[in-house]
C-alpha cells in the first residue's frame, strides 16, 4: 500500500496545479471539481433563499422591490437544480462509478473534462443577468411564456446558460452509460453492480431523453423572443400551454434525475450500518427502472388546472398514483434492511435515516396532490413548495451530504470530526422541519407561492418558517468546517475499509484512493458485493 501511495505522489508531481485542476482527465479530480462547484453554488443559491425568507419574515415589503423578489425565486430554483443537485450527483458518479465497477477511469476522460468545464461558464452567463439592464429573468424557474418573454434581453443569457447546462449533463450521462456498459471488471454482471451504479445508469437515460426536450423548449422561447416566431403566442395561433407540456415532459423525469441517484446512495449506506445485506436488491433495481419509465407518462400532473380534458386528468392522476407503488417498495425495503440488523449510527447512517423520513413526508404530500380534486386546492400554493423542498432538500440534498460523509474518508484518507458532523446532522434535520413543515399549513390556508408579500393571517407560520430557514442555512456552514478540517488538518488516518461492514470494490482500494482506480481489473468475489450476495 505504501508503494502505491508513493506512486500516486510521483504521478501527481508530474502535473502543475494548473494541469491537474484545469486540464484534468482524471475521474477523481473531475469528481472533486464537480463537488466543489456544486458546494459553491449551494451557498449562492442558499443566499438567494436567505434573502427570500428575510423578505417573507413578516408581511409588508421591507427589503426589495417585488420584481427583484421574483428574480431571486427564479434564480434560486435554477441554481439549486442545475448548479447544486445535478452536478453534485455527477461529481459523486465520477468519483465512485469507476471505483465501484473496477475500472481505471471513466471511459471518455476528455469528454469528462469538457462536461465539467462547460458548467462554470454556464453559471457565469446565468448569474451575470443580475447585473444587466432589466435584471435577471423573473418568471420562475419554470419560465412560462408569455411572462418570461416580457423579461429583458437577459433571457437570451438564461437560455444559452440552460443550453450549456443541458449539454454538460448530456455529455456527463453519455460518459456514465459508456463507462458502465463497457468498463465493468470481468465477472461484474449488471445485476451484481452496486445500487449507486444502477441508479446512475437509469438516471443517465432519463437525462439523455429529457434534457434535449428542455433545450427544444427554450430554443422555441428564444425564437419567439428575438426572431419573431409564434410558438407560444396565442395572438398568432401559438399555444402557451404547449410550452408547459414540453417543459413538464422534461420537468417530471428531471424530478427523478434528482432523486434516483439519492435512492442509490441510501441503498449503499443503509446495509453498511445495518450490517445486513440490502433487502430485495433485484426489487430495488426493478423499482428504479419502473419509476423511470412511469416518470415519462405523468407530466401533466403539474398542469391539472390548465384546463385539460377530463380523460387526461383521470389518466394522469392514475399514472401518478402508480409511482407511489415502486417508491413505497424502496422505502419498505430500506426499513426491512434495518430490521433484525445490527445497527450503529455513524454520521452517514444518520443522514440516510433522515433521508428516509423526510423523503417519505415529501412522498406522502405527493400522493395527496396526485388526487385531481385535492390538487385543485393545493396547486400554486405553499403546499407545493413544502412538498418539493421535502423531496429535494430532505431527500436529494440529505443524500448528497450523507454520501459525502460516507465516502469522504475514502477520498481524503482522513477521518472527519464525529462530533461536528453529528451536530451538523441534528441541526439540519430539526431546522429543515421548522423551515418546511409550516409551509404545508400555509399552503392549506391558501397562501400562493412566489409572492413577496401576504395577508397578516399568514404572518405567524411565515415567521416560524423563516427562522427555520436561517437556522438551516447557518447549519450548512458546519459542513464547510468539517470538510476543510478533514481534508487539510485531520490527523486520523482512514483505513481502506473505513466502515466496519462496508463492502464493494471501492473499499478494497487504499484510502486515499490511488490516482487511477483499478489498473488491474479486480477479481469479483460474490461475498464482498456491496449489497450482499444476490444468489441467496
Amino acid at each position, binding site marked *: 500500500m505504501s508503494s502505491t501511495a508513493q506512486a500516486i505522489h510521483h504521478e501527481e508531481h508530474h502535473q502543475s496545479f494548473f494541469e491537474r485542476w484545469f486540464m484534468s482527465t482524471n475521474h477523481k479530480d473531475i469528481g472533486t471539481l464537480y463537488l466543489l462547484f456544486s458546494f459553491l453554488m449551494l451557498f449562492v443559491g442558499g443566499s438567494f433563499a436567505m434573502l427570500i425568507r428575510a423578505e417573507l419574515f413578516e*408581511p409588508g*415589503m421591507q427589503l426589495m422591490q*417585488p*420584481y427583484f423578489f*421574483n428574480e431571486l425565486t427564479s434564480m434560486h430554483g435554477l441554481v439549486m437544480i442545475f448548479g447544486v443537485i445535478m452536478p453534485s450527483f455527477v461529481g459523486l458518479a465520477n468519483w465512485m462509478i469507476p471505483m465501484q465497477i473496477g475500472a481505471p477511469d471513466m471511459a471518455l476522460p476528455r469528454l469528462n473534462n469538457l462536461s465539467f468545464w462547460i458548467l462554470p461558464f454556464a453559471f457565469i452567463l446565468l448569474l451575470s443577468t443580475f447585473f444587466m439592464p432589466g435584471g435577471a429573468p423573473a*418568471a420562475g424557474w419554470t419560465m*412560462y411564456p*408569455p411572462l418570461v418573454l416580457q423579461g429583458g434581453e437577459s433571457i437570451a443569457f438564461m437560455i444559452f446558460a440552460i443550453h450549456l447546462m443541458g449539454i454538460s449533463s448530456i455529455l456527463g450521462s453519455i460518459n456514465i452509460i459508456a463507462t458502465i456498459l463497457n468498463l465493468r471488471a470481468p465477472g461484474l454482471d449488471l445485476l451484481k453492480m452496486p445500487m449507486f451504479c444502477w441508479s446512475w445508469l437509469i438516471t443517465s437515460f432519463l437525462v439523455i431523453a429529457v434534457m434535449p426536450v428542455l433545450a427544444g423548449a427554450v430554443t422555441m422561447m428564444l425564437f419567439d423572443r428575438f426572431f419573431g416566431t409564434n410558438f407560444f403566442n*396565442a395572438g398568432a395561433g401559438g399555444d*402557451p*400551454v404547449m410550452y408547459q407540456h414540453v417543459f413538464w415532459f422534461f420537468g417530471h423525469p428531471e424530478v427523478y434525475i434528482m432523486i434516483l441517484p439519492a435512492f442509490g446512495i441510501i441503498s449503499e449506506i443503509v446495509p453498511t450500518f445495518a450490517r*445486513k*445485506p440490502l433487502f*430485495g*436488491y433485484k*426489487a430495488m433495481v426493478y423499482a428504479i427502472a419502473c419509476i423511470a419509465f412511469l416518470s415519462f407518462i405523468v407530466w401533466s400532473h403539474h398542469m391539472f*388546472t390548465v*384546463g385539460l380534458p377530463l380523460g387526461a*386528468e*383521470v389518466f394522469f*392522476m392514475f399514472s401518478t398514483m*402508480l409511482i407511489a*407503488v415502486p417508491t*413505497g*417498495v424502496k422505502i*419498505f425495503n430500506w426499513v426491512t434492511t434495518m430490521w*433484525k*440488523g*445490527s*445497527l*450503529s449510527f455513524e454520521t452517514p447512517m444518520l443522514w440516510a435515516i433522515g433521508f*428516509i*423520513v423526510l423523503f*417519505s*413526508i415529501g412522498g406522502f404530500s405527493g*400522493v*395527496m396532490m396526485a*388526487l*385531481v*380534486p385535492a390538487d*385543485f*386546492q393545493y*396547486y*400554486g400554493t405553499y403546499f407545493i413548495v413544502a412538498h418539493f423542498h421535502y423531496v429535494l432538500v430532505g431527500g436529494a440534498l440529505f443524500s448528497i451530504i450523507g454520501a459525502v460523509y460516507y465516502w469522504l474518508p475514502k477520498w481524503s484518507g482522513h477521518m472527519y470530526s464525529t462530533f461536528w458532523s453529528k451536530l451538523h446532522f441534528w441541526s439540519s434535520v430539526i431546522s429543515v422541519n421548522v423551515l418546511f413543515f409550516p409551509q404545508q*399549513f400555509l399552503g*392549506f*390556508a*391558501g397562501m*400562493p*407561492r412566489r*409572492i413577496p*408579500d*401576504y*395577508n*397578516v*393571517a*399568514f*404572518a*405567524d*407560520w411565515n415567521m416560524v418558517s423563516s427562522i427555520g430557514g436561517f437556522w438551516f442555512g447557518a447549519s450548512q456552514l458546519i459542513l464547510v468546517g468539517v470538510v476543510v478540517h478533514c481534508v487539510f488538518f485531520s490527523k486520523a488516518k482512514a483505513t481502506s475499509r473505513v466502515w466496519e461492514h462496508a463492502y464493494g470494490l471501492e473499499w478494497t482500494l487504499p484510502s486515499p484512493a490511488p490516482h487511477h482506480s483499478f489498473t488491474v481489473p479486480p477479481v469479483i468475489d460474490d461475498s464482498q458485493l456491496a449489497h450482499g450476495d444476490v444468489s441467496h
Partner: protein
Amino acid sequence: MSSSNCKRRIVGAGAAFGALLVSMAAAANPVPWQMNLPKGATPVSQQIWNLHMAALWVCVALGVLVFGAMFIAMVRFRRSKGAVAETWSHNTLLEIGWTVVPVLILIGLAAPATLLTREMYNSTDAVMTVKVTGYQWLWRYDYISYDGKPVTKVPTIYSRLAADSNAARQLDSGISPYSIKAPDGTNDYLLDVTHPLVIPAGVKVRFLITADDVIHGWWVPDFAAKRDAIPGIMNDAWAKVDKPGTYLGQCYVLCGQDHSAMPVVVKVLPREEFNAWLTAQQNAATLDKAARTARVEPQQPVPAKG
C-alpha cells in the same frame, strides 16, 4: 389579534392535531396559525375537503407504520445492545404484500377522486355565466348570461387591489399591514378590491376564465373553483354557493411583479338581493354611461371564441 383568533391559536406543539384540523377548517377566510384547508362553501369544496382528509389520514397511518417500524428497529437492533445481524434479504410474501396493499389503498382514494373530478368538470346547466379575464394586475368580470337570457347593459367590473392595501404594500411605505382593516374589523391586507364580483347564492354559476397578457390563475378556495387564466384559451369552472357572504382568493400563477396584489373577491348575495342589484346596475349604467366610459381602463380584449 382578536379573541376569536386567539381561540384558534395553537397552545403548544403537542396540541391535539386532529381536533385542531377539524375546528380550523370551519373558518371561511385565512386565520392566523391556520393549519388546514377550509371546508369551503360549496358542495364540491366540502367533498374535496373530505377527500383531502381521507388522503391525509391514510398518509398519517402509513407514516406511523413505516416510521414506527424504523423506530422499533433502531431501538431493538442496536449493535451497542449486542444485536447480531441476520443475513436474509428476501421474503416473497412480504414483497408481494407491500406491492398489492398500496395498490388497493390507492384505488380506494382514486375512485372517489375520479367521480368528484367528473362532477367538477360538469359545468352544464349553469344559471349564470360570468367571464373572468386576468390582466397585469387586475381582474375583469363581464356578465354573459343569467336565467337563460344574455345580460346586457351591466357595466364590466374591474377588480383592482384596494387603495389602502396598495399604499401599504409599497416598499418603505411606513404603513403597517396590520392596520389595513375591513369595515367588520378583520384584516384584509392584500385581500380587498375596489369592485368585487357579485353573484347570486344558491344557483350554479359558471366562470369562463381567460387572460389578456400573461397567464394568471383565478381561485376562490371556499368555492374550490380554480382554473388557469391563459391568453387565447377559455377555461371554465363553476360554483354553487349556498351561503351568502364575501369570499376571498388570490391569483395563484406567477404573473409578474404585482402577482401578490391581484386578489379575487366574490360577494355572494341572496337571489332577490342579487336581482335587485343587477337591475340597479343596469339602470345606473344607462344613466351614467358617459361617466363610466371616461374612466381609464384597459382596452377591450379580443376574446377567443370558445
